[in-house]
């Protein structure tokens, strides 16, 4: 549909009307301002003040404007239309894209070009507060659904001309706007190229959220672990950009995609850098321990209680055996039932208003749990194991990552139920093999716990422990090899 505009205003309007037939929200405003003109825009997604004051009033008040054709368009563009961003367009395709993007198109009789005036005025909510990555000390502002606002929030934090932005559109029908942001000179060009290629390869009719893009551009789609990080924090995005990562801002989504994203990134929260390193190192360590417990505890309990009770201290083994005396189900079945009950409880509570979800939490956690123990269906130790697993599952500050933990937990339970301690370690081995074979845009997923020699082991300083900020002198391995020094007192490249 790369059809060029004609000289006839009537023909152009008719053709646009034909394209937008049965679209009641398209407005055609005919007027005379030295020649016959017409404005085309979509109702309610434009900024009315801009259209009225910067286009209509200016054009109609200029008594000296006479003539027609391209010269008239050129003069209007330079002298009359006072909108901040105007461009000349020549095809119907450009007109359709401009109109649907919230811009106003100015057509003029005798001209085979038109003016695209930026008058976007989508209804948006203001800058809200962080909902999913809450920090105690850090900034509270969060991204919202408007891409322009999200870009501003990032630019506000990095006042450097080397912060580059590439605009693109994805989705054959939705034509969703996206902005690929990176720091020139810091970003690794190969990684950037690979990301751009992945985005260009997306061929879908519609993209409605960054979650769509996350799934469409990640390489290992069979893995339950995310290889792409999403965040609603502008400060985290800014710090990631300065680390050499790439940010993809998707219009209509309050989450920005950060790439690449190895496992270590999912264990970091914004607060890690706003509070003292000692306590945050301890918390970071606890997150890793928690993640391991979440994957392994139920399986390990089955292996030890059913197959190898001799490995437990005698008193503990007797206590466990005593608590299970009247329970009619095997240990593995008990654990499975409790884990599935917990999954249902989470799913039931997560999308409900908070008063209802807390009621479900009380009903499920306390009433059913206590009742099940008293009825002798489940042993109290199993409740402790399930509760501890549940707490540890959500200790990781990234909900996408917890999905992987939840799925692998069942693999370990399954193998432990059939093969005891061997099955348990086989499950852990599967997990390690799986994670070792994964990559996120060329970066090993388990980096910096493996391959860390690539950046002289400096990335280990911000992994299980977070060392003092002054010791984090180098940028991570994602950054361009010759520009990895963050703190040195020397002039940056």
């Amino acid at each position, binding site marked *: 549909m790369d059809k060029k505009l004609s000289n006839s205003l009537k023909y152009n309007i008719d053709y646009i009307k034909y394209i937008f037939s049965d679209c009641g929200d398209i407005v055609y405003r005919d007027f005379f301002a030295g020649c016959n003109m017409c404005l085309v825009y979509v109702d309610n997604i434009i900024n009315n003040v801009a259209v009225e004051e910067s286009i209509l009033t200016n054009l109609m008040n200029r008594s000296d404007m006479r003539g027609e054709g391209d010269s008239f368009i050129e003069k209007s563009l330079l002298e009359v239309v006072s909108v901040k961003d105007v461009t000349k367009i020549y095809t119907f395709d450009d007109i359709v894209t401009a109109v649907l993007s919230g811009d106003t198109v100015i057509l003029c009789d005798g001209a085979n070009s038109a003016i695209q005036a930026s008058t976007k005025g989508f209804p948006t909510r203001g800058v809200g507060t962080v909902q999913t990555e809450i920090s105690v000390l850090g900034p509270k502002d969060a991204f919202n659904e408007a891409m322009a606002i999200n870009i501003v929030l990032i630019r506000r934090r990095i006042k450097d001309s080397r912060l580059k932005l590439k605009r693109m559109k994805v989705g054959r029908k939705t034509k969703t706007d996206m902005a690929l942001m990176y720091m020139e000179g810091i970003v*690794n060009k*190969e*990684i950037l190229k*690979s990301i751009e290629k992945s985005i260009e390869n997306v061929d879908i009719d519609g993209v409605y959220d960054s979650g769509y893009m996350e799934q469409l551009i990640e390489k290992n789609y069979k893995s339950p672990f995310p290889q792409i990080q999403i965040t609603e924090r502008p400060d985290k995005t800014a710090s990631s950009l300065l680390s050499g990562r790439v940010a993809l801002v998707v219009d209509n989504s309050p989450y920005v995609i950060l790439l690449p994203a190895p496992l270590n990134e999912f264990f970091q929260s914004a607060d890690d850098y706003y509070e003292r390193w000692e306590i945050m190192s301890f918390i970071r360590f606890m997150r890793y321990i928690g993640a391991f417990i979440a994957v392994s505890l139920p399986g390990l309990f089955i292996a*030890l209680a059913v*197959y*190898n009770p*001799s*490995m*437990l*201290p*005698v008193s503990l083994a007797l206590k466990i055996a005593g608590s299970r005396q009247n329970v009619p189900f095997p240990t593995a079945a008990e654990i499975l039932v409790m884990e599935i009950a917990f999954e249902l409880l989470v799913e039931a509570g997560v999308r409900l208003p908070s008063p209802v979800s807390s009621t479900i939490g009380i009903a499920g956690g306390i009433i059913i749990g206590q009742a099940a123990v008293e009825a002798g269906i489940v042993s109290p130790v199993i409740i402790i194991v399930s509760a501890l697993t549940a707490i540890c599952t959500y200790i990781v500050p990234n909900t996408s990552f917890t999905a992987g933990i939840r799925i692998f937990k069942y693999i370990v339970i399954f193998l432990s139920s059939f*093969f*005891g*301690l*061997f099955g348990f*370690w*086989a499950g*852990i*081995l*599967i997990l*390690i*093999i*799986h*994670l*070792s*074979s*994964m*990559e996120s*845009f*060329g*970066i*090993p997923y*388990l980096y910096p*716990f*493996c*391959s860390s*020699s*690539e950046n002289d082991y400096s990335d280990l300083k911000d992994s299980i422990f977070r060392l003092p900020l002054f010791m984090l002198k180098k940028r991570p*391995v994602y950054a361009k090899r010759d520009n990895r020094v963050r703190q040195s007192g020397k002039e940056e490249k």
Partner: protein
Amino acid sequence: MFSSNNKISVRQIQVLIFISGFASCFTVLPRFLANTGGNSGFIIIALTSIIVSLFVAFCLNAFEKSKKGNFKNIVESLFGKYFGNIIYFLMTIKILVSGGLMLRILCEVIRETTLFKTHISLTGGIIIILCLYSLKGGIEGFGRLGEIIFITAFIPILIIFAPAVTDTDYTNILPIIDIKNQNIVQGFIVSLCIFFGIENIFMEYSFVNKIKNVRSIVISILFLGICTSVVYFFTITRFGAETASSKLFPVIIMLDTVEIPGAFIERQFIFVIWAVIASAFVFINSSFIFGITFNKNKFFKIIYSIIIFTFCFIPSNITKTLEWFYSVNIFGGIVFGVLLPFILAIYCIIDRRKKH
């Protein structure tokens, strides 16, 4: 981007050498060496590690300077494509058979310690499936896997090992130099051929990325030698050479029975079995990786699985398995780990001098 290049770093190869060596150390070495080296076995290991490291350094330097490419290319260059392929195939078979026998040993360890009633075909099958699954990450994934296993399996073992210093009877090792009844030369051969897996080192070195470093390989061999020497020392001090040679898996028993003061678990076997499973897995998987260097075809992966699985079940019991393992590695080790690399190194040196 530094991955997706089918290469591993020097650190990764160091870790793989260490873990593969430890698989033998956990399962077969003390028993074999106690029979031949007796109380002096730990000195034999230390001395052998020095000899091996010098030999490996000599060969690798010669290979590198010749600029003929990887180990396979050098074999083909000397013996011609046809015979070179046959020799390389025989070497692959030796390593696959070793892998199969190690799989059997691992299955027996599991049957002896955790799964008393489960048939070893099930445990063996699971390990083979895990090996095949890990092949999807290629040599890079294998290198990374090695690093993670090193962190997760060997740090707990070190923690377990520390109390062994106090919880042992040092009189059992006396007399330290006991050469009356022992065959020291045989001890050296056992240590050299079974323990260090020299042919694996040459094969793995072919995958090292652009920053090659023979010194790092030497360091890892020496480090492995020291660690194994310490393990052997404590095994003998705990049981005495005679008892150690009669026990099936003396190192595992030694590690399991060390008293850890104030430990939550009654026996630290949970960590020990992880180290054994993980290290044996790396040993077996090395066979697959080596096989892939011979032929990457999917069909060959199935053939390799069948060879490993078959040799896991051919020996009728664990004693026979250990005998097989001993014979295959002594013969194969001398031919493919010592003679072949030595001939190749000499060829590379002569060839280089001719060109100059």
